[in-house]
């Protein structure tokens, strides 16, 4: 544990989908800066407990909260549980996300619903649930995890790209609405990050993908976490409604 005061000391941070991947790295990064970190998970309790252990080892306080953000009533319960423990929430990281890739003509309607309800509606209704607390304290930072797929889709990612594009549009509108209350809302659009979610596609097309990444490597969850912490910090007070691509430049070229 660091002896100097962390940037997020005394701040309460809620990270959704924090049992693994980007959410886990974000939770640990906040913990290193002294935050109280609420670790939300849907089903993988063992993995979430591991995140909690790492959060505590890093110098933060951990609270495990099971909730399925695709269920609206769960969003409210999730926020209530965090507030019950730590009285408020200063930072919300809407990270929980799923993919159900497949060509549109073979679209399974349930898959579409799952992706949109988790990625988009989870972000919307969790934001709605935390805003009264942020408004009352005249301080709040919301960071939504989008994807480069919001702007540069791949075949088979109709649902995922749509959900992330909508998250970015929502980010801008919410930022406008809540700016007078000292609440900022921004998004991070990660590129190809080494997580379970991208495991399959990296395995199938490793060389082709790497060839399109100007920095010649995949991103690490920690690369994304650093940007999340920046947007949640006082250094980003004047930034709202923006999307930062953390993608090693993958969206810059034309892919040839």
């Amino acid at each position, binding site marked *: 544990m660091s002896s100097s005061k962390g940037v997020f000391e005394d701040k309460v941070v809620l990270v959704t989908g924090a049992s693994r991947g980007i959410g886990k790295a974000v939770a640990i990064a906040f913990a290193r800066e002294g935050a109280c970190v609420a670790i939300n998970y849907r089903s993988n309790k063992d993995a979430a407990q591991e995140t909690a252990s790492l959060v505590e080892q890093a110098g933060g306080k951990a609270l495990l909260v099971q909730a399925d953000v695709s269920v609206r009533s769960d969003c409210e319960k999730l926020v209530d549980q965090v507030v019950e423990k730590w009285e408020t929430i200063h930072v919300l990281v809407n990270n929980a996300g799923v993919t159900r890739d497949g060509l549109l003509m073979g679209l399974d309607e349930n898959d579409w619903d799952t992706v949109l309800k988790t990625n988009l509606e989870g972000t919307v209704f969790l934001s709605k649930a935390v805003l*009264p607390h942020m*408004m*009352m304290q005249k301080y709040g930072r919301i960071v939504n995890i989008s994807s480069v797929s919001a702007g540069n889709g791949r075949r088979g990612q109709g649902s995922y790209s749509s959900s992330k594009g909508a998250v970015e549009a929502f980010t801008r509108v919410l930022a406008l*609405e*809540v700016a*007078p*209350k000292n609440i900022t809302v921004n998004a991070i659009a990660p590129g190809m990050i080494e997580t379970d979610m991208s495991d399959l596609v990296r395995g199938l097309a490793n060389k082709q993908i790497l060839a399109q990444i100007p920095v010649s490597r995949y991103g690490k969850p920690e690369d994304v976490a650093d940007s999340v912490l920046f947007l949640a910090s006082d250094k980003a007070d004047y930034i709202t409604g923006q999307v930062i691509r953390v993608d090693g430049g993958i969206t810059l070229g034309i892919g040839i």
Partner: protein
Amino acid sequence: MLTKDEVYSKVTDCLVEALGVDEDEVSPESTLTGDLGAESIDFLDIVFRLEKSFSIKIPRGGLFPENILSNPEFVKDGRVTEKGLQELRDKMPHLDIDKFANEPNVNNFADLFTVDMLVNYVSTKLN
């Protein structure tokens, strides 16, 4: 049970917090929008603070109207129609709709939202 003065004092505290105004800027006749500079998000802020301060529940659209003045059935050429006025009387009994009905221009509607109106609304809720 709180006296009207006590309710007024707590309502003033909520407005000072929500709107960032000084206490001496707030008077019973102050209009929330015109005099105290409230914007749309501030109305939600005020509702949350009143709920917490008085331990009451204010239903959505219960204090400030929703979907009435944006409904073409209730507003025509910038004026609230008879039907709209009736809707406001039914849904917003805490507002002085009779006074507004003399000149039902939508631009005048915000003037109904005064500090005194909030005090009366909360007092009724508490009773």
